[in-house]
């Protein structure tokens, strides 16, 4: 009888533990990142976020993610960010029509023009709702890269993806994420890989 009482106590505890663990199992962000550890990031005080490449069907996706990256960088207090209108004006002055394939000379020229130590480029690969059986859920995949304007070399790059309806949302009616929330989290997770440095 005392053995049974022991099991009963553990059962309650295990049930609670299981709940905590699976409760955390909403959509998670996965991805990879690379950072050049030989670079002293403290000298990067001001960056320009260039227009992103859009590989999705949503024509606004690239601009949405770009604005989110700018907001996240500003909110982090890590760096100053050039106002987007100024970036567009600089691209026009430097006669750069395609930001998806900048060469070293162009990156250096932009750096001088905008007085920034680095530029951030990016690609939005997925942005929208995907069908998973009988339900639809948001999915966002982005790649960001930072190039220093002195040498034009890539010093940070990250790819993050987040999406799908979590276990608890599908089976227990927990609140699913909206597309905006998914985008916010994937950008936050991506930029956070820079915080550590």
């Amino acid at each position: 009888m005392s053995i049974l009482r022991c099991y009963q106590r553990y059962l309650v505890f295990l049930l609670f533990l299981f709940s905590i663990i699976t409760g955390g199992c909403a959509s998670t962000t996965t991805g990879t990142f690379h950072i050049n550890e030989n670079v002293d990031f403290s000298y990067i005080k001001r960056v320009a976020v260039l227009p992103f490449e859009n590989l999705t069907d949503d024509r606004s996706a690239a601009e949405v993610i770009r604005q989110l990256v700018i907001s996240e960088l500003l909110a982090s207090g890590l760096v100053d960010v050039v106002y987007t209108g100024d970036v567009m004006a600089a691209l026009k002055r430097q006669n750069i029509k395609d930001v998806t394939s900048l060469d070293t000379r162009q990156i250096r020229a932009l750096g001088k023009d905008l007085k920034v130590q680095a530029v951030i480029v990016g690609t939005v690969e997925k942005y929208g709702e995907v069908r998973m059986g009988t339900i639809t859920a948001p999915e966002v995949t982005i790649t960001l890269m930072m190039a220093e304007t002195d040498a034009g070399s890539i010093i940070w790059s990250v790819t993050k993806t987040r999406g799908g309806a979590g276990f608890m949302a599908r089976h227990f009616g927990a609140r699913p994420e909206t597309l905006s929330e998914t985008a916010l989290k994937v950008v936050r997770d991506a930029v956070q890989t820079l915080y550590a440095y």
Partner: protein
Amino acid sequence: MKEDKSIFPQALRNRLCLSIILSILILSAGCAGEKNIKFYRSDEIKGIERVAVLPFENLSSEKEAAKRIRRTVIAELLSRGVDVIEPGEVTRVLRELEIRSPTALSIEDIQKTGKKLKVDALITGSVIAYRISRGINVSYPEVTIQLMLIDTETGNILWSVWNTEGGPDFWVRHFGTEGKSLSETARDVVKKAFDTLF
């Protein structure tokens, strides 16, 4: 008194029920997510008494979303005692300065516009989402905006906020109660955005 011969005595049954209920509540509530607002506020914000709200960029699928949010922003600023230039006057000046893309002004354009309108700062913004989304079993409003306050002298960003409101709350999902309308959600998102400034 009847002897309880079951494997699970009454006291344990009560504890088990309570644990299950608490766990479900924690899961459902805990899955509400982190704060959906990101903001930056410069220490240089002072003496901003008069602003102009530029036309917003519309990144949503709703044609009139940018106009609606711009009107809501102007109303919110006025309710907080900020002097706001009349939108028609802003349109006239932008036309006069031959600014075709008010959503992507250079610093030079910002300074010229600020001088013409005699304002301390400009508010620019984008509407990222303005829609009724379909969730697993329910529909819900979703409004996402980004706003910036730009100093007209220096072109510096004094304040920036990204905020999203909406999504299906607990009562809508499980009890079918009526959630907020799209307009109410839009007002909330603008109000909470400005709570980070004032």
